[in-house]
């Protein structure tokens, strides 16, 4: 039997351990939490929103050049959580895939197809011994022309799924349970309520009150299906609305 004959390499490269686990993939998940940031995505009736923290670690850093929100196509946006460099690589690959699709087929790629493509690429990394999985997780948002608002998440294991709401990052378990509680009654989420729920989720899980400069929010709505990030004044307006409600 080949039990234990991996000579302990199962922790170093992406081959199976005797228990049937891929340690490298599990370590990749831990790497996502290393960045210290948490991101939340929520799908409402006509809006999908992704929120992430904006932590500027260095006073000399120019905050306008630091972002985790990326536009993959005019209508599909994403937030990346985890390793910065791996995130940029995955975003670039997603843009290339979307561009090739548009060239080959003549119409814009759909969010679920793009997510599946990236998940398939991530799966290859979990099978090749010479390549490590990427230490980042992508939450993708779009307004699908037939299905309406959609929210997809794609992780280093090559797993992808559509969500009503999800969280990724350092405090993802707490954030996910908060979202489960809030969405249990299946409330009707208007545009403002969706954004404010996402912000409140982050503040309650991280136990801090945010300033507008400490958050990044990306949205797509049915009226304006192009992906865009909210400006500081718009974020401020939502924060004020949350404070007034309490």
């Amino acid at each position, binding site marked *: 039997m080949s039990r234990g004959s991996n000579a302990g390499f199962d922790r170093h490269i992406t081959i199976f351990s005797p228990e049937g686990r891929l340690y490298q993939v599990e370590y990749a998940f831990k790497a996502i939490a290393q960045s210290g940031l948490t991101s939340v995505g929520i799908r409402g009736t006509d809006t999908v929103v992704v929120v992430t923290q904006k932590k500027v670690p260095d006073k000399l850093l120019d905050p306008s050049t630091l972002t985790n929100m990326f536009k993959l196509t005019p209508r599909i946006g994403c937030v990346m959580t985890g390793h910065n460099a791996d995130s940029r690589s995955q975003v670039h690959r997603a843009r290339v895939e979307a561009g090739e699709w548009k060239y080959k*087929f*003549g119409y814009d790629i759909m969010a679920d197809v793009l997510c599946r493509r990236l998940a398939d690429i991530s799966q290859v990394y979990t099978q090749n011994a010479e390549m490590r999985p990427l230490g980042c997780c992508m939450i993708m948002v779009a307004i699908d022309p037939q299905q309406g608002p959609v929210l997809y998440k794609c992780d280093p294991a090559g797993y992808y799924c559509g969500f009503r709401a999800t969280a990724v990052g350092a405090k993802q378990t707490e954030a996910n349970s908060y979202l489960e509680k809030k969405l249990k009654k299946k409330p009707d989420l208007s545009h403002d309520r969706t954004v404010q729920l996402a912000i409140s989720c982050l503040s309650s899980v991280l136990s801090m009150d945010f300033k507008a400069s400490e958050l990044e929010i990306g949205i797509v709505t049915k009226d304006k299906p192009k992906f865009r990030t909210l400006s500081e004044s718009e974020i401020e307006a939502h924060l004020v609305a949350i404070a007034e409600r309490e």
Partner: protein
Amino acid sequence: MLHSLNPSQQQTGGFSFENSRRNAVLESSLSEVGYKAPKARKTGTTIAGMVFKDGVLLGADTRATDDMVVADKNCMKIHYIAPKIYCCGAGVAADAEMATQMMASNVELHMLNTGRPPLVAMVTRQLKQMLFRYQGHMGSSVIVGGVDVTGAHLYSVYPHGSYDKLPFLTMGSGAAAAVSVFEDRFKPNMELEDAKKLVRDAIAAGIFCDLGSGSNVDLCIITEAGVQFLRGYDKPAQKGKREGQYRYKPGTTAVLTKTETPLSVDVIDESVQMMDTE
């Protein structure tokens, strides 16, 4: 990665032009002696398509020609691509057949990949990219028509890869005859029966006025509800019925005289040839 980023990659498959110069020399030397190189069988053809109130209507004749000889009196020029997308092919018969079959399998894979019904624009895009890649050597002109989530669409793609998107289109050697009928009587949002008559008349114009087209009219009606394929919808060029007969009853011609002359034949030579039965 995008193909444009790998310029050094050798293009495998497709046409090889290594023997072009040799072929040109051979052809010129043949024509000096008076022989012609054999030509591929073309379909001659009149194909037409139009967008009407409920969807798209495609029509085609059914004659395949081999230079000046009719090779097939009832061939099928309307090909299936997807449940609600059909395509008429003109030009070289084999090229049209292969191109549409490749499109059909690509579309099937695409449908399985996306889980959604295909778009007519996607079929046109892939078809024109393939034809451009072959630089016009794939001699098939096609009319692609169908109904998808965005509505009813009609495209024509030429052998070099250019395409047109119009409410009515004709292709093939009988295109001029057919398009004249369309130009005269086409109106947007026609009813089904009027549209069928119009396409039938356009194809009939091609059948009668063009030598490369003939036999029957095939129609294909594609609507949101589904597809109706009318093979042999109209047979305008029926074979005429023979009025008289060239067979005469025995006794029609009177026998006047009868003479018998016996011939005597002698055996001169007898030879036996063994047959090769091994």
